[in-house]
């Protein structure tokens, strides 16, 4: 009875709104565990794919670690995947700054879909490949450039 009188402070519109909220919450709370279970299953099947991790070992190879690394590509970085690879490379390799299409650096990352063009570029700038990531991106060194 006490509870009923306390609800008399609400207008009919408020009570209608509270009823809607009740329905909404019931629906949301019943659906949330299913969603969480689905997410757990996805992660059990496949770990989170962070393509930038392919660059993490570069820090072990390159000594001393430079402040600038060239990043040459024939891909359009406005497209989703090449843009993501570049941004994640920048994140993983920080505090080095990636210089897009900058060739005058000791270390250069080569992300080319056209292998003939890649060979031409490497030859023109006297680049020596050091390592290839499993996504096919090559870390090359320019022996003619001094440490940065």
């Amino acid at each position, binding site marked *: 009875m006490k509870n009923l009188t306390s609800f008399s402070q609400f207008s009919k519109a408020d009570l*209608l709104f509270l009823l809607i909220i009740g329905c909404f919450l019931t629906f949301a709370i019943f659906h949330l565990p299913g969603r969480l279970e689905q997410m757990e299953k996805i992660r059990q099947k496949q770990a989170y794919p962070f393509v930038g991790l392919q660059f993490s070992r570069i820090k072990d190879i390159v000594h001393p670690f430079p402040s600038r690394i060239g990043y040459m590509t024939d891909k359009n970085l406005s497209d989703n995947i090449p843009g993501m690879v*570049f941004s994640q490379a920048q994140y993983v390799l*920080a505090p080095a700054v990636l210089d897009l299409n900058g060739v005058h650096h000791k270390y250069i990352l080569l992300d080319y879909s056209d292998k003939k063009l890649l060979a031409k570029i490497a030859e023109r700038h006297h680049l020596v490949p050091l390592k290839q990531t499993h996504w096919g991106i090559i870390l090359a060194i320019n022996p003619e450039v001094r440490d940065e």
Partner: protein
Amino acid sequence: MSSVLTLLPFLISLILGWMLCDLCLKNVKNRDPYLDVFLAGGIGLGASSFLMFLAVILKNRFDQTAVLILHVLALAVLVFLIYRRKRPPAARTGFDLTRAAGMVTLLIFAWPVWIFAKFYPFGGWDAWAVWNFKAKFILLSGTRWNELFLPELWRSSPHYPLLLPMTNVWLWSFLKTPLQSVPMILGVVFTMLSAGVLMFSLMEGRKRILALAAPVLMLSLPHFLTLATNQYADIVLGYYLLGAAVCLRRWLSLKEDGWGYLAALFLGCLAFTKPEGLISAGILTFSALTLTKTFKNLRKEKHSVGIFLGILVAALLPALLFKFLYSPGNQSFINGLLSAEKPSTFSRLRFILTFYAAEWLSGKWNGFWWLISAGMLLGIRKTFHKQNLLIPLFLLSYLAVITLYYWANTYFEIQWWMKVTLSRLITALVPLSIFWIFSSIIPEDKKQG
């Protein structure tokens, strides 16, 4: 050991925030320690971020000793100020079943928030391209830290303020390494702080049991949880926006100046989160000062408005320093109102408005915005009552400014731009919108006074 070093800066920030809250709210009667904790957590992290920024400016690099000295100094000053005041704080004591139930509810809902955060351990696109990248760069680059503002790093939005990156650097400062789990934990922390402020501010003076539903409503929205835990600054902005609105609303409706002083700190943090945060802080301050004219008690108290403005100016210093000394300006801006090549057309405006409608109708929000609209319409007299007017005034002004910006800045193709940004902008408004509707609908409890 690394978990202790991860938790230690959180603890220091909480103590710092608690002292700042204590100092601001010294004359506030019947303080709720539960609400204080959730306000202190965010204010403390914001203050630590300011101190980190100051340390980086002073030493021109990340320096662990400098930031620790600044924290010790700040804590010493606060201890002195709190110790010398005449009246001890009058906090509410004793066990409160509803508030305890609220804490249990938050603990239960921390689990789904954590699952969502773990699903993307590196966060979303802007987490690695903007926020975490900046933090990592500041931590590791030494005296080269201001290369962050070079034009070649335009992809990391160099004009965005540094509250979130500086907070992450502070949280990494004991470890001295950019541990990836820290930004993930921070996303969870800000989500839970928002839920806590929402719940305990609604319990104050109202039917408490109904306030339990407000954070549950927020934390059961999968789309909100995805965006809140993706390590972007939007949940940080949403938290400070809510905190500022809660404190300003209390300042306007109660005779307690302390809420105004705390609001000023929240507004300073808000302005340092994102460019939208600076705009929000401006609109909220302007709206609050306009509304003071409608409240007799504040019109008479010009003194408290003066102190509010003084604290606000001090709290805005990091945002203003960044804006005028470091920010290279927005490089992705074309003024379509003046440009002949890329003009702001009527069809662009029509598209923006249509996109709003599509977002409102979108199934990804599970009908949340319909619910908020229904609440607004069903309680229209209360939702636009003078006591609640601050929030609708802010929301309308903010949406108008955002619409104008989408329309006037023609640098980006509008379809792509709205697709990737509108949901995020709206995410920051979720806690505030729930607070607005619930604080209007739930009647006051006369027994609580």
